[in-house]
């Protein structure tokens, strides 16, 4: 970043201060979440707990309430991420490397696909799934989640692929290599950070998805945590806020940890955005 002149140093101090202030602003709304999870009689008002208790966590950390739904979330989100990444990379290859007539309409088409109101479409989706006998099928739900994540994923994968220089493949082609082999042996290894980014983005979106698994799955033991979180909402609008807050923390920590891990492994959050820069 160059020499440390006085103006550079003061810029650094100002940046640091402003950033810390912003960080505090972002952390503040989370204060309620943390306080309520340790409060035996939590409500929606912010208050210091009358007595500090781990009861909420104890009640929440049971197989039925936490472990099985979290496992299901992992299965759904992980499955969705894998399917999406594979299909998106395959699709991104011709979009990135060749000038086909189908490219432009396909890309614009999937761009609009990113703003499809999935909730408004759930009735025909349900009928479709019922006809295919895929209701209450984890596999079917994974494929649907993947299909709805594809537009964004293809977009991102294509952008990552664009920044991999084509010269290496051109050399391979003159040596007689096939499309599939250049894809798997040259492009994919060079795109590894990008692939991680797409995977984690899709994973996070699927982790928080309530409506799709709610509609497409019947058995309670197959429901992910995003659906089982509504177990804390009782009749006539009563909500067990303390347990809800505790559960939310348990629910969010895996995803945040995953993000931190992946971004650390990719050399900081900057790599994460490389695929979205368009």
């Amino acid at each position: 970043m160059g020499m440390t002149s006085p103006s550079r140093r003061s810029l650094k101090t100002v940046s640091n201060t402003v950033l810390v202030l912003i960080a505090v602003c972002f952390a503040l709304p989370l204060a309620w979440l943390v306080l309520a999870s340790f409060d035996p009689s939590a409500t929606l008002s912010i208050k210091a707990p009358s007595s500090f208790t781990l009861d909420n966590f104890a009640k929440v950390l049971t197989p039925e309430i936490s472990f099985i739904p979290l496992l299901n979330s992992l299965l759904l989100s992980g499955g969705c991420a894998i399917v999406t990444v594979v299909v998106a990379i395959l699709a991104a290859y011709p979009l990135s490397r060749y000038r086909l007539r189908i490219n432009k309409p396909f890309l614009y088409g999937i761009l609009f696909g990113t703003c499809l109101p999935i909730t408004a479409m759930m009735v025909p989706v349900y009928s479709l799934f019922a006809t295919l006998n895929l209701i209450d099928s984890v596999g079917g739900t994974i494929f649907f989640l993947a299909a709805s994540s594809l537009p964004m994923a293809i977009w991102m994968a294509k952008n990552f692929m664009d920044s991999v220089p084509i010269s290496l493949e051109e050399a391979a082609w003159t040596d007689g290599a096939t499309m599939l082999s250049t894809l798997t042996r040259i492009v994919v290894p060079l795109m590894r950070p990008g692939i991680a980014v797409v995977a984690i983005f899709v994973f996070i979106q699927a982790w928080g998805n309530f409506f799709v698994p709610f509609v497409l799955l019947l058995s309670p033991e197959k429901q992910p945590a995003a659906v089982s979180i509504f177990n804390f909402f009782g009749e006539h609008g009563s909500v067990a806020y303390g347990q809800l807050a505790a559960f939310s923390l348990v629910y969010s920590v895996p995803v945040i940890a995953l993000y931190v891990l992946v971004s650390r492994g990719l050399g900081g959050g900057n790599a994460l955005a490389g695929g979205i820069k368009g």
Partner: protein
Amino acid sequence: MVAIAETPARRFGGEPGGLPPETPKQRARRRSQIATRRSIARSIPLLPAIVLLSVFLLGPVISSFYGSFTNMSLTGAAAQGSTFIGFENYAKLFGDRDFPKSVLLTLIFVFASAVVGQNVLGLGLALLMRSANKLVRSLVGTFVVAAWVLPEIVAAFSAYAFFSSKGTLNTILGSVGITGENWLYDFPMLSVILANIWRGAAFSMLVYSAAVQEVPQEITESAEVDGAGGFKRLIYITLPVIRRSISTNLMLTTLQTLSVFTLIYVMTGGGPGTNSSTLPILAYQEAFKFSQLGFGTAIATIMLLVGAVFSIIYIRALRPEVD
């Protein structure tokens, strides 16, 4: 016999030797046949995506679109078999006293929280993080991203607990002697806009962090040597270079913000009255509370059109490369 599809090198031309000479017409036809076969072969990797999208999304989209021209309903007599009613849903929508206000609120919400809020904050964070130390960068990164990865219902409750009249914000203001307003009641749009910025800034921050890294150092440094101050460098060098990222990010954040529902519903319920009823809230009421699916889908179609209009504006104005 090696198939054309297997040797992309063929696209650089070159004919197999030893064949009788062709007429120009024959050659042109053969070239286009080869080109077509090549195109088809090259499109094959698109096939899984096309299959998934058409099976799971295309059918339901068309069915929903058709549904907006019927009185489809989840309950009541119309659930037995819906009747085609043409544009009646749309006419009712445009005549609905709440619709114009809902569109306006949606536009305000999208513009303020996505176009301005998330993008400006995201860019600002990205620029500032360049000259911050590592610990601060991690701290900011973690909290900003935490707001993004929280499940939507939890983020909504946290935001509610923050802005409610006995909430975190007013408690803090109270401790320094300022009486806070009743944010959710008197300033519902402001509250949900701020909450949405809080929730979505992470995405823009990540995009701009990478984009800004791509700005070649030589250009900024030579500009600095020429006497251009920080602000001038930002406007005349950095922003134009990351133009494509700006437009792509604008598009993505706009489209995502258009469909925000849970956040607003939990914080204000769309109220007071209809003061924060954006289109998704309206669609939820009509489609689910009143089980008028046809009507709800009509609203969703309008939302899609609004999204399309925004996208076209961005593409025309900023010309990102799609190829």
